[in-house]
């Protein structure tokens, strides 16, 4: 466990270095979230009865989504890992006495956490101060907040283990830019990155809810506001654990097979 923690720490510190980039990023995400909320507000004004979530829940959903963007968005891949596969540096990685899956996993997770930690707090703070209908509200109860935190961690795990599958397929395809883009676009959409899952019309919603992508940002963002509460929240967390286990297991098996075939690119 220790080497993974070391990698995590190193990456985390590394990620904290780019403070002005973080500042620009925060302003961007804040403006972005605000526009997103205004769009939902316009729909709410058009027909409040057709709105499938409480408006305040939607507002919280979007603010948290923007604040924790780096944790949840599938398209946030590690360029370094793709490079190591295409340039052949993977050979060094393999020579190290450390399990590659764990190494990549902790590297990806650490970078995401570092980005999110730096950016989330100021965004959340400002979001909690804007005028009433657009304000980020507190979670309904302390217990709900704890469930939210657990769910955030799990969804980070699910997102990372999904990205692992993408990294591993690169071993076969080498140039994966297109496939990466496709996988990320679909996964993010089905995770509720564009519109929250409750806004999906019925057959699509039911399908999306049983896919692993629903265990990504969909779950914690809805648990926070109490949109998913009590038993349903516990059940949701159970589903997240299930998908995390399935995806990591699948990833490890895939990796074993892929590494058996890995062709080190010379040069």
């Amino acid at each position, binding site marked *: 466990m220790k080497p993974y923690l070391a990698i995590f720490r190193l990456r985390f510190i590394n990620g904290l270095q780019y403070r002005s980039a973080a500042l*620009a990023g925060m302003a961007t995400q804040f403006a972005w979230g605000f526009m997103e909320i205004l769009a939902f507000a*316009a729909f709410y004004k*058009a*027909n409040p009865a057709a709105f499938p979530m409480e408006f305040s829940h939607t507002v919280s959903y979007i603010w948290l989504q923007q604040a924790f963007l780096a944790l949840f968005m599938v398209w946030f891949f590690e360029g370094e890992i793709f490079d190591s596969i295409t340039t052949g540096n993977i050979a060094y990685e393999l020579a190290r006495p450390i399990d590659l899956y764990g190494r990549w996993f902790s590297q990806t997770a650490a970078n995401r956490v570092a980005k999110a930690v730096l950016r989330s707090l100021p965004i959340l703070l400002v979001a909690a101060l804007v005028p009433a209908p657009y304000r980020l509200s507190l979670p309904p109860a302390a217990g709900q907040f704890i469930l939210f935190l657990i769910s955030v961690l799990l969804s980070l795990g699910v997102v990372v283990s999904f990205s692992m599958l993408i990294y591993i397929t690169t071993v076969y395809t080498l140039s994966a830019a297109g496939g990466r883009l496709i996988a990320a676009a679909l996964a993010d959409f089905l995770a509720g990155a564009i519109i929250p899952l409750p806004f999906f019309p019925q057959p699509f919603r039911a399908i999306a809810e049983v896919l692993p992508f629903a265990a990504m940002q969909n779950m914690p963002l809805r648990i926070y506001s109490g949109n998913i509460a009590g038993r349903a929240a516990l059940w949701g967390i159970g589903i997240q654990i299930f998908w995390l286990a399935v995806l990591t297991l699948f990833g490890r098996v895939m990796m074993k097979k892929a590494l058996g075939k890995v062709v080190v690119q010379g040069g």
Partner: protein
Amino acid sequence: MRLYLKFVAMHLQSQMQYKISFFLLALGQFLVSFTALLGVSFMFTRFNAVDGFRFPEVLLCLATVLMAFSLAELFGRGFDHFPRIIRSGELDRMLVRPRPLVPQVLASLIEFSRLGRLVQAILVFCYAIPASGIHWTWDKALTLCLMVLCGSIVFFSLFVIYAAFSFFTIEGLEFMNVFTDGGREFGRYPYSIYGREVLRFFTYVIPLALFQYYPLLYLLGRRTSILYMLMPLLALPFAIPAYAFWRYGLSKYNSTGS
């Protein structure tokens, strides 16, 4: 110009060397904007209208912005990519060549996979133009062309501003994404739905609404004044400060030394 075309051909040829990779990328680009489209259509299964705009009318808006953006991106990707040109020192090489700088930047990167977006804009137009129920006369057709053309010039100018910022920051300025990518993403709805302040901002500061919202009202017959039809032209002067800022940035340029 001949040189530029030669570069275009070169980029095309090199990207066509990896055909599967190219088509996957194009498909990816297509899907990324397709999920946004899907989001809009999901919203409209629930809501009949937003701010008085029905689904086909919103689609018309979405397609205009998407097409304007993808045209600008297709030709102006070099500016979008500009921070990297500065960082790698490539700009120094460009400056010593006996050719004007702007065409060189334009020719430095042309990604044909971005056509994925353009194709989608065309497909949406194919659906929305008849479905919007607009009685198409020559003046309305002209308005639509103006919207797309002037829109792509506005987006292009935004790319230039983005590039000009990087003379000072070296890194790309992430905040500009709110206006470029954000302009595209939020432009899927008429800017009026975001409220009056936002509409005002996108009218007077960053003139995105001038080619999107106002002429759309003319297309839909909600405004009949010819002024609304010609509104996209008013967005064109935006290119002047953009270019001026670019010149200013260039005059302050210090090489990164790499």
